[in-house]
C-alpha cells in the first residue's frame, strides 16, 4: 500500500510540473494588465509602471517563469497580487467552505444516485425506469443557476425553511453550518445525482445480464442478496471511479453555486483571480487543485483494493 502511494505521488510530480507551466503560460496569454486594475481608473501611467515594477511584471516572461518555478521548488506558491496574503493562506481560508460543500453534496449524491441507478436497472424498461431516468436527465440537463434561484425562492423566500445565502463556519455550531450548506449542497448534488444514476444503471444492467445472476436467482437466493451482494458489488469499480471524479468536480467546480449562495469558496476565489489577472493566485490554486485531484485518484485506487479483492497493484 505504502509503495503504491509513494509510486503514485512520485508519478504526480511531472504532471504537476506540466500543470504549473501550463497555468503560467495560459495566464500570460490572457490580455489585460493586473497593474492597471490595481492602480484604478484614475491612475497615471507612471503609477501603473511603478506597480508593474514592484510586482516584477516588467521582467521577461522566461525570468518570471523561472522565478516562479524556483520558489515552487522551495514550497513557496507566492503571494496574491490583490489580496495582500499568500496563495496558501488565501486558499486555506476558503478550502473549508469548498470541502464542506463538496462533502455534504457527496453524502447526498452517492446514496441518491446509486439508489436511482439501481432502481432504474432493476426495473428495466418499466415505468419506474422511465421515471428514474427522467429525474436523472432533468438533474443533468437543467442549468444549476436556474435550479438554485428557484430553490431559494421556494425554500428561503416562500417557505422560510433555509437561509437564502451565506456561510457559517463549523466552529460556530454544527446546525447553523449544516443549514447554511444544505440548500447549495442539494442544488450542487442534483447534476451529480443524475450523472451517477445513469452510470450506475448502465453498470448494473451489464451485471444483471450475467449468467451468475440468473444462477443465483435459480438457486432461490433472496432478491436483496442478488441485487446488492451479487450484482451491485460487481459494479463498485465503475461506481467508485465515477464517485472519485464527482468529488473532484465538487471541490473545484462549484463556482456557480458559490456565486448564487454567496459562499466564500475556492471556486469564487479562482474566478475572481482570473478576472483581476491575479497571476500567482490562479497559478497556485490550479496547482493545488491538481494536487488534490492526484490525492483523490490515489484514494480511489486504494478503495479499488478494498472493494474488489481481485485487484492487485504489482
Amino acid at each position: 500500500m505504502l509503495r503504491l502511494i509513494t509510486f503514485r505521488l512520485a508519478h504526480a510530480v511531472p504532471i504537476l510540473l506540466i500543470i504549473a507551466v501550463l497555468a503560467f503560460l495560459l495566464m500570460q496569454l490572457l490580455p489585460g494588465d493586473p497593474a492597471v486594475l490595481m492602480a484604478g481608473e484614475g491612475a497615471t501611467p507612471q503609477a501603473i509602471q511603478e506597480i508593474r515594477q514592484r510586482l516584477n511584471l516588467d521582467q521577461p516572461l522566461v525570468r518570471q517563469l523561472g522565478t516562479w518555478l524556483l520558489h515552487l521548488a522551495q514550497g513557496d506558491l507566492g503571494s496574491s497580487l490583490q489580496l495582500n496574503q499568500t496563495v496558501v493562506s488565501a486558499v486555506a481560508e476558503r478550502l473549508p467552505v469548498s470541502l464542506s460543500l463538496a462533502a455534504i453534496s457527496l453524502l447526498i449524491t452517492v446514496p441518491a444516485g446509486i439508489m436511482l441507478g439501481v432502481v432504474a436497472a432493476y426495473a428495466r424498461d418499466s415505468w419506474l425506469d422511465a421515471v428514474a431516468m427522467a429525474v436523472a436527465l432533468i438533474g443533468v440537463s437543467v442549468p444549476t443557476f436556474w435550479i438554485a434561484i428557484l430553490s431559494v425562492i421556494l425554500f428561503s423566500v416562500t417557505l422560510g425553511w433555509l437561509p437564502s445565502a451565506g456561510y457559517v463556519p463549523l466552529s460556530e455550531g454544527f446546525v447553523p453550518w449544516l443549514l447554511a450548506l444544505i440548500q447549495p449542497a442539494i442544488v450542487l448534488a442534483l447534476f451529480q445525482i443524475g450523472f451517477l444514476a445513469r452510470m450506475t444503471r448502465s453498470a448494473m444492467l451489464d451485471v444483471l445480464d450475467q449468467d451468475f445472476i440468473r444462477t443465483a436467482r435459480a438457486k432461490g437466493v433472496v432478491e436483496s442478496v442478488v441485487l446488492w451482494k451479487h450484482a451491485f458489488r460487481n459494479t463498485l469499480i465503475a461506481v467508485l471511479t465515477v464517485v472519485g471524479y464527482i468529488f473532484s468536480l465538487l471541490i473545484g467546480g462549484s463556482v456557480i453555486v458559490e456565486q448564487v449562495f454567496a459562499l466564500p469558496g475556492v471556486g469564487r476565489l479562482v474566478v475572481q483571480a482570473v478576472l483581476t489577472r491575479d497571476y500567482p493566485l490562479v497559478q497556485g490554486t490550479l496547482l493545488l487543485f491538481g494536487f488534490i485531484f492526484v490525492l483523490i485518484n490515489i484514494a480511489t485506487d486504494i478503495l479499488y483494493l478494498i472493494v474488489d479483492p481481485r485487484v492487485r497493484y504489482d
Partner: protein
Amino acid sequence: MITATASQKSKKSRYLSILMGITALVGVSALAAPAQSQGKNAETIIYGNTAGPGTLDPFVGSSTVDLEVMHHIFEGLVGMDANYAAKPMLASKIDVAPDGKTFTFQLRKGVKFHNGKEMTAADVQASFERYRKLSPNASVLADVTEYSTPDPYTFIIKLSKTNAVFLDVLKSPVYPFVVLPAEQKDKPAREVDIIGTGPYKLAEWRKDSHLTLEKFDDYAVDTTGKPADGLVGKKEALVRNVRYRFMPEANSRIAALQTGEADIIANVPRDLVARIEGRPDLEVRRLLACQQYFIVNTQQPGTDTPEMRQAIRTAIGVDDIMAAISRPTKRSHAMTIPGGEYYNGDLNNQYYDQKNPKLAGELARKAGYKPGQKIQLMTTATYPEFRDAILVLSEQLKEAGIDSEVHVIDWATNAANMQSGGGNWNISSTQFCSNPNLGPQQWKFMVYNFPHVKNDGTLDAAYDKFYTSQDLADRKTAWNQIEKQVLDQAYMIKIADTGLIQALNKKRLPSFDDYYINRFWNVPLK
C-alpha cells in the same frame, strides 16, 4: 429461458417499493430542518452588496465598494457635503493665503484614532508623505514644496504655484486624503493597518463573505455646530454594528431582503424590481449619481480627426440607448450635475442627442470615410449597460452608412485598453460616478487620458485658467470652455445620467438618506 415466477415478481416489487422509499427519504430528509434566523437584530444593519472591498488602504482605494466602507472608518482634513462642496472635517478652520499657495489647517482637538492615540499634525504630515509615495493619485501633490507642523494642532501645506481648487482636490472621496496614525507611514500599499478616526472601526473582514464594522465608542463627534451633511458634520453611529455581506448574485440579494437576512441591498437589476415593489415593507430607490459616455480614441485611425468623431456623434440618438441599458437613466447633456456649482444649464446642449443619420453619413464622407471601413467598437459583457449601449451604437452607425465591428472582451482588458490606448479600438463605453459630482479638477485625468487627447491648446489653456483663477466666476467660465471642447471635439459623447437601483426594508431603516454612496452613521435601526 428462465422466467420469473409470480412469487419472484411479488418479491421484486416489494423490494422496489423499499428502494424507492429510501431514495425519497434521502431526497427530502435534508429539507426538513427549519431555517435559522440570520442575524436580524436591533444592533446590526445588514447591507447586501455586490462584492467586498479589494483593499481598505485608503490611499490606493478607488472603487465604490472600497470607498463605501472606508468613509466609515477614515476621515480627512476636508470632506464633501451633500452638494459635493469641500467642507472641514478633521480641520476646525482652514486659512488660504491670498496667493492660493499656502493652506493652513487648524486641527480639531481630542480626535482619537481607533487605537486610542490622539490625532495630531504629525499624523497628518506622515499621511500626506505616505500618500505622495504610493498613491496612484499622488501626482496631484506634485506642486507641494513643503509641509510644516508649527504646533501639534496646526498643519501647513505650501505649493509652488497657485492652485485655486486645492481644497477641492483634497475633498476627493476617490483615493481619499485621510489621516492615518504616523506609525503607518512606511507601510507598503495595501498593507496598512485599518486604523482611522471615523465613527466605525473595522471589527471583522472575511474576504468573499462579509465585513463587519463596529461602533467606535471614543469617536470624537464634530461639535462645531454643523449638522450631518454629506460626509461631514455631526456624525454618530446609532447602531452597534454594520455588516456588509458580499452577494454577487442579484437574486440572492433580493431573497435576502425578502427574508429579512438583509436590511438594504445594492444594485437591483431593472427587470427584477417587480419582485420587491409589491411588498409594503420594502422600498425601491433609484439613484442617478453617475453618467455614461462613449469614449472616442483620438489616436486610432478612423477616429483621429475631429470631423469623423463629430460625424459619429451626429448619428447618435440617446433614447434608444437609454431604453436598451439595464440601469435607471435620465436625459442630460451636461458633464456636471444640476445644482452643482459648475452646472451650466443648456450652454453645451447642442452636442447632445443629435440623432441625424443622414447628416452623419454626409459628414463622414466629407471627413474621408470610405464605405467598408470599419469603426472598431470595444465593450465588455461584465457590465451589460456598456455592451448594450455599444450594440445600439453599432446599429445607429449602420443607419448612417458607417460600418462597425463589435468586440466583446472582459472588463480587465477593456479597462486596460482604454487606459493605454492599445487594442485597436475606436469607441468604447464607460460610466463615471465621482467625476460629475466632484467637478472639473476630478474630470481632468479622464478627459485627457481615456480619449488620449494630445496637443489641444484650447483645452490646456482652459484648464490652466481654471486652476489659477481665484474667482469662482472665472473658474466657471473656464469649465464651460473645457466642457464645450470635450463635447465639441467628441472626445467623449454623453449618453445619459445613469445610476443604480437599491432597495431597503423601510420598517427597519425608516430614515435612511440616499447619497451617491451609502452611509450608515446617523441611521437608526428599528
